[in-house]
Every structure is written in structure tokens, then in C-alpha cells.
């Protein structure tokens, strides 16, 4: 399933950071959700983040495109620092695509309208061109025949693939995935993971919050373990799964792998 998926380090330009997070903190009220996150993601690097529920995984990736605001430290995406400057936020959002656990498709629009909404209104792309792009990406996620349907008429797996295509239509440099398969029935997980693997093969920079260990092993350059708002451990998948260093990582792995 991961044929042709190269994890050679030379394949990614290790001297160029796509995302840099430096000593980043976030609080929800008094609750210290993220406690000093340091993370550098290279261009074309693929990272899988795992960890127990409530450890701050979603919050971390949501900070990267400002769905949540961090309060201390720095986040730099492709050389642009995420500050309160609205221009910078816009620029960063233009480079970062996000896929949610619950798809968040727009139920009142057809699939093709879902895909063209952003390009037409936020980017001022002509309608015909936006539709052409939309069909190209629907083809990529293997559901071109659903273009005229509404999200409610599609299965969960199909909806999530539409959501991926919708993000890709905005031509992002980084894709964030927040547990993209955890709301899906088991038989649909593979079709979504396959699309993500194809995306990886094309060299997309990806941060994936997921507990799909098979996916992590075959796709990730690095697997991170988060607990209590900190990145406790990060390593290549081989090392991470075979030889975890931290006690909490060991405990967590023993729980999810039985």
C-alpha cells in the first residue's frame, strides 16, 4: 500500500523549515493546555501526532492556522510569523489546509460548490477555472461521479475525501489532519487513508493527528507523542514503536496496541 513511498531524508529539503513552533504556550482560561511546544517541521516532512484524549493534539494543530490563538512563544509558517496581524493570518491560512474529524462540509451546497466556494470567493478565481480544479481534485480522491450530489447523500468516507479535496483546491503547502478517520466506520477508513498516502507520495507536508498505527508506520517520518500539553517523545516510527523511551509512551502504546 505504500509502494513508491520514499522516506529518504534527502527527498525533503531538511535545511528549510516549513513550520517552526518555538516555546509555544496556550491557556483556556486557567487551564494550561499547551505547555511549551517546540517543533520544527521540514518541507515535505510528514508527522503523525498521537497521545491520550485531552492531551492537546487538536489544540496544537488548530493553533497553526489560528483557529485557536496561542498566548506565548512563536509560530512561524513558511517564514511568516503568526501574530495578530490579520494580513499574516490570511497569508498563513492560504498556505495551510485543515481536515477535521467531522468533515465540516457545507450541507447546503453540492460537492462541487463545496470545493469551489473558497477559490471563487476568497481567491477570486473565475468560476469555470475553479470548477475545473475541483473536478481535478475530485478525480484524485476517486469520486468525480459525486460532484453534483449534496454531502448528506454521501457516505462518511466519501465525505471525508471530499473534505480533503476541498482543502487541496486552495492549493496549500501544508495539510493538517485532525483525526480524519476516527469518525468513520471501519470499512471506510482505508479509502481515506489511501488518499492521504497518495498525497504523501506527492510530497505534501503533513501533520496528522491519528491513532492509525499502520498509517504512521508506513507514511510518517516522525511520530510524536503528546501528553498533558507537552510533546513527550518524538522519533522515527521504527524507533517509536519498537523502542519507546518514555514511560508514558510505553503505557499509551500498550493500551492502543493491546
Amino acid at each position, binding site marked *: 500500500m505504500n509502494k513508491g513511498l520514499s522516506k529518504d531524508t534527502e527527498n525533503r529539503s531538511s535545511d528549510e523549515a516549513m513550520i517552526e513552533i518555538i516555546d509555544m504556550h496556550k491557556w483556556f482560561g486557567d487551564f494550561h493546555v499547551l505547555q511549551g511546544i517546540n517543533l520544527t517541521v521540514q518541507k515535505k516532512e510528514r508527522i503523525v501526532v498521537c497521545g491520550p484524549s485531552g492531551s492537546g493534539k487538536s489544540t496544537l494543530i488548530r493553533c497553526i492556522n489560528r483557529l485557536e490563538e496561542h498566548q506565548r512563544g512563536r509560530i512561524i509558517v513558511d517564514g511568516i510569523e503568526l501574530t495578530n496581524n490579520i494580513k499574516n493570518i490570511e497569508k498563513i*491560512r492560504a498556505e495551510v489546509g485543515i481536515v477535521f474529524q467531522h468533515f465540516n462540509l457545507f450541507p447546503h451546497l453540492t460537492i462541487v460548490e463545496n470545493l469551489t466556494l473558497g477559490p471563487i470567493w476568497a481567491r477570486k478565481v473565475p468560476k469555470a477555472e475553479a470548477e475545473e480544479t475541483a473536478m481535478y481534485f475530485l478525480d484524485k480522491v476517486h469520486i468525480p461521479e459525486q460532484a453534483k450530489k449534496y454531502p448528506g447523500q454521501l457516505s462518511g468516507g466519501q465525505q471525508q475525501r471530499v473534505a480533503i479535496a476541498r482543502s487541496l483546491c486552495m492549493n496549500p503547502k501544508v495539510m493538517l489532519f485532525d483525526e480524519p478517520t476516527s469518525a468513520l466506520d471501519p470499512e471506510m477508513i482505508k479509502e481515506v487513508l489511501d488518499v492521504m498516502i497518495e498525497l504523501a507520495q506527492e510530497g505534501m507536508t503533513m501533520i496528522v493527528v491519528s491513532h492509525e498505527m499502520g498509517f504512521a508506520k508506513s507514511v510518517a517520518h516522525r511520530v510524536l507523542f503528546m501528553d498533558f500539553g507537552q510533546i513527550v517523545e518524538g522519533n522515527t516510527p521504527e524507533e517509536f514503536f519498537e523502542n519507546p523511551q518514555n514511560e508514558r509512551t510505553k503505557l499509551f502504546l500498550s493500551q492502543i496496541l493491546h
Partner: protein
Amino acid sequence: MEEAIQGTHLEELKPPVTSVGVIGWVKNNLFNGWFNSILTIVILFFLWKTVPFLFRWAFIDSVWHTPGQGCREAAGACWSIISTNFRFIIFGFFPYEQQWRPLLAMMILFGLLFYSRDRNHWKKPLGYAWIMGLFTMGLLMKGGLFGLTPVESTQWGGLPLTLLLSVFGLTAAYPLGVLLALGRQSKMPALKLLCILYIELIRGVPLISLLFMSSIIFPLFLPEGITINKILRAQVAIILFTAAYIAEVVRGGLQGMSRGQYEAAESMGLNYYLTMRLVILPQALKIVIPPTVSILISAFKDTSLVVIIALFDLLKTTQSVLSNPEWMGFSREAYIFIAILYFLGCFSMSNYSRKLEKELSRGD
């Protein structure tokens, strides 16, 4: 032989006579169980006692074209009160020879409303058509240009006035209500407070007192010599009142939207205005179509409250006919007529909303 067997076989497959057709329907819907049977019999008895009588009164013993005296001798309904006073009831004190003008204005209005029913027509040209139409209607009512005799707005009345107050009242109240609902959800504390204050204050006051305030108290605050048209003041009061209720209904719809919808739109780079216009409002407003239409319907009927500030809307013109000694005592017929007109208005609104809802729910 074979065929015969098959024949009987097929016959057996048909449902028993008692469960289909008229008999089946009657059995299933009117006489299933002793309670429903008794109810059916009681209702049938009641209808038998009333319907023939009402029918006789309205259609057989009734008179349609007599002067008031003829009515007093008739045993049935006196529809003459409507036919004789029709033009006054509909047009009020608008100069008699000029009444083709409000008639034409109403026809333009109905034409535009009818054409606007179809959502496929909601394009730029329709907007221009409405602007042109509004201008023409205003000109027809007011006159003073192109050789049309000027008619003071104090002479406007009857159905055109009711339509003016309700159609413009409702079309202005709706967007205002949506804006108020958005304001109430706003992150700007001052704006939010202002909207809450407005909504709660207006909802705490009956429409009658708003109308009184608009006609009696409000002019006190205006500088000497400046007057604002009475119809306009009533119109504004109706708009402000209805908007507050719309706002609360729309707020309910907005609260039903999941955070994920906002986040998806935001992460695609849509700004607040586009997010609302393209993603949130189309869904939220659709959810609240039924309660919104209830408000619009009751606002339509509430326009008749303008009688208390002496505007001659449809209800008031009818009442003035009734105060004429010749027609005194035929209020039943007059009010039935008015009720039918109001019913037609309300019924087409609720019908249209159902159609709209069906069209918009294709996505679910």
C-alpha cells in the same frame, strides 16, 4: 385448468375489499374503534345541523345587489353591502375617478411578487424591475408628475394602504431582524449590548403603544414646523417592531449552527461577511423558515392595528361602511369578506414558505 388455478391464485393475492377503496378508507379513518366511531357520528350530526343552514344563509336566501332596504327584508346574507361599497372598502378616500391608479399600483405589486416567487428569477434584472416598479407605484399613488393629479397621502386607504404597510413592513423588517441577530452574536460588546437593548425593549412593548408613540409622542420631539408623514411613522413602527421578533428567531437559527461550519469557512480564508453570507445564513435562515413565517403572518394581520391612529386601512374602511345607517347591522357579512381577504394573504404566505422550504431542503 392451469389457468383457472392461477386465476384464483391471483384473486387471493388482492387485498380484501374492506381494506381498500372508499369503504376501506372510511373504515380505517372514521370508524376504527368505538371512540372514533362515536366522534364521527357526533361530528356528522353537528355538520348536518349547521352546514345546510349556513349554505342557505350565504347562497340561497342571500341578496347580492340591493340597496340597504332590500337587505333588511331578505332572510339570508346581505352581500350587497360588499358589492355596493366595494370601491370604498378597497380604495378608501382615494378620489373616485383616480382609483384606477391604486388599482394599477396593486397589479404591478402583485405581478412583481408573483414573478419573484421563483428563485431562479432572483437575479439583477429582477432588482431593477423592483426599483422601477416601486417608483411607478409611488408615482401612481402620489401623482403630481406626468399630468397625474396629486393625491395627499392622507387620502390613501383601504387595501393599497394595508398592502403598503405590510409588504414594505415585512420586507424591511426581515433584513433588519437578521442584522440585529448578527449584532447580538457580535464579539464587539458595545454593538452587542445595543442590539440586546433594542430587542428586549421593543419586545417588552405592545405594538399598539409603539403606534401611539409614533403618532403622538414622536412628533413632540420634532422641531416646530417639521412633520413626518403619518403613514411613514406607522410604517417605521411596524418595521421596528417586527424586526425585533425576527431577530430572536434568527438568533435561534444561528445558535443551531455548529462551530465546525464557521471553522471550515474560516480556514478556507473566507472573511466574516462571506462566511455569514455563503455558509451560515443560508443554513440558519432555512432552519427558521417556519417560525419566521409565523411572525410575518402575524405582522401582516397586526397592520390592522393602525386603525387606532386613524389610518384608513382595509379594516377601517369596512368599519366606516358599517357606521353608515343604511348598512348598519350587516357587520357579519362585512367581516367575513375582510376575513377572506386576510386569509388569502396569510394562506399564500404560508403556502409559499412551504414551497421554499421544500426547494431548499434538497441538500438534506
